């Protein structure tokens, strides 16, 4: 279908996206170290194009995990970020985010700190990427995704929903702060409605090189 062809991302474009993330993340590491008060290790981002049919296999793992999702939008790139953390990840973060000792046992605030870290990681990473692509982005409010221990990531995120997309660019970034034993995976979904703008931005960027 011609429509699908317009959405297809070729190898050159995938490389360009990867490069934008690489550069954006170099900047993110410095910002994150300042905010989180520790050195933050960032994995080289993995970029792939996926279809909705591949989600089940891609996100099969069940988990004792916490999930937070946060939408972002801008002229060149829009989509949704999903952060995956250990269920007890809040423990490592509460002091850093200024929660007092008595606040650290409150469930609502344990949840809040997961929203905080997701917003921090997403903003640090994606604003650099958007800048590379010649635009700005901003974020809507993050929200917790309810995950039962026996459901897979795929079920928690997508099942039972008629997704408004068939294709998406997926970028996976790993974060780790060894000093406080914290790690997270950030999945950046850029769905098909956002791909034409992304392709135009990449085209413009490649031309400028």
């Amino acid at each position, binding site marked *: 279908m011609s429509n699908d062809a317009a959405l297809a991302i070729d190898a050159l474009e995938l490389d360009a996206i990867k490069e934008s993330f690489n550069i954006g993340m170099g900047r993110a590491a410095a*910002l994150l170290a*300042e*905010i989180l008060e520790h050195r933050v290790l960032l994995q080289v981002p993995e970029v792939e194009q996926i279809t909705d049919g591949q989600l089940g296999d891609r996100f099969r793992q069940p988990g004792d995990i916490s999930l937070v999702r946060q939408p972002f939008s801008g002229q060149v790139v829009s989509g949704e970020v999903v952060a995956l953390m250990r269920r007890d990840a809040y423990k490592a973060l509460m002091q*850093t*985010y*200024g*929660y*007092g000792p008595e*606040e650290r046992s409150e469930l*609502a*605030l344990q*949840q*809040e700190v997961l*929203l*905080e870290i997701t*917003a*921090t990681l997403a*903003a*640090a990473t994606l*604003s650099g990427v958007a800048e590379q692509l010649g635009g700005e982005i*901003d*974020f*809507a*409010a*993050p929200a917790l995704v309810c995950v039962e221990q026996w459901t897979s990531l795929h079920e928690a995120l997508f099942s039972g929903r008629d997704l408004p997309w068939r294709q998406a660019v997926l970028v996976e970034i790993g974060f780790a702060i060894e000093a406080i034993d914290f790690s997270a995976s950030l999945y950046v979904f850029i769905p098909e409605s956002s791909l034409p703008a992304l392709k135009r931005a990449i085209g413009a960027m490649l031309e400028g090189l």
Partner: protein
Amino acid sequence: MVESSGMPIVPRLLRDMSAVGLVAVDKRMNVVLWNRFMEMHSHLSAAEVEGRNLFDCFPELPQAWLEKKLKTIMLLKNTAYSSWQQRPYLFKFPNVSSVTSEAEQMFQDGSFWALRDESGQVQGACISIHDVTEFAIAQQLLEEAAEQTLNLEEISYRDALTGLYNRRFFDEQIRHEMQRARHFGWDFSLAMVDIDFFKKVNDTYGHDAGDEVLKGVALTLLKELRASDTLCRFGGEEFVMLLPKVNRDNVQEIADRLLDSVRAAQVDAQEATISVTISLGISQYREGVNGEQLLKEADKALYISKTGGRDRFTLFDPDDAAFQ
């Protein structure tokens, strides 16, 4: 101090906005904007707040957390949020619907973004406060209702067919009645009721007719009982009733009345009019007797009613060898 140049009407608009709270602080956390909404709900004017440190004005603010949040957005230049679901409010303001609503505090959603000057340099931070009290209360009511529905399904005390209390309720109720009887020295009778030849009703008229008979008997018994009595469907065609403050003498009057009423009642079931009789076995609370024992005694008495010809009642007598 942050100045907005060019269109003085814009800051004026924001300042006058009373539907959304707007607060701006500089990098040292001194307040540079305190709009109408904030004035109204804090009862502090802009003149009283602007120029002062935010945390000096509002010591109850979660300072460490909020400073971290504001510093983060000044570095990342993103928009950040806080939700009433995790943090009911940022500024402790009274709920404006204090007349018609039970919430004392205003529930708030907040958003946070960097305040930049013309050249894009970050000069401070902005906070917007949205009053979401109505929404939060509605949401909480919904959640409570959902919880209650779950509870009702889980611990239903009603028998679906007759609408009478079920055995589960009986088990709890008899404990309460025994406690009251012990505590106040009350009499207390327990009666087991069984519909005579109920199997024959089912076999002759069908199970739907049998169900109608069960409902009809339940209704007839209920009409004869007091509000303080408890009638439960025990299972099958068996009922049990708890009769507080009823002693050995007046329970016989009650039993006679019940027998008469059921005998006289006619149940319209399918295309037939059915009459049935019942048998009763009755026991009385005595000191040192537990609920289980009372049930057993009533059951023994019921057995004697059945073998003695049905359509009658029998009082359990602990001294009578016939019940041993």
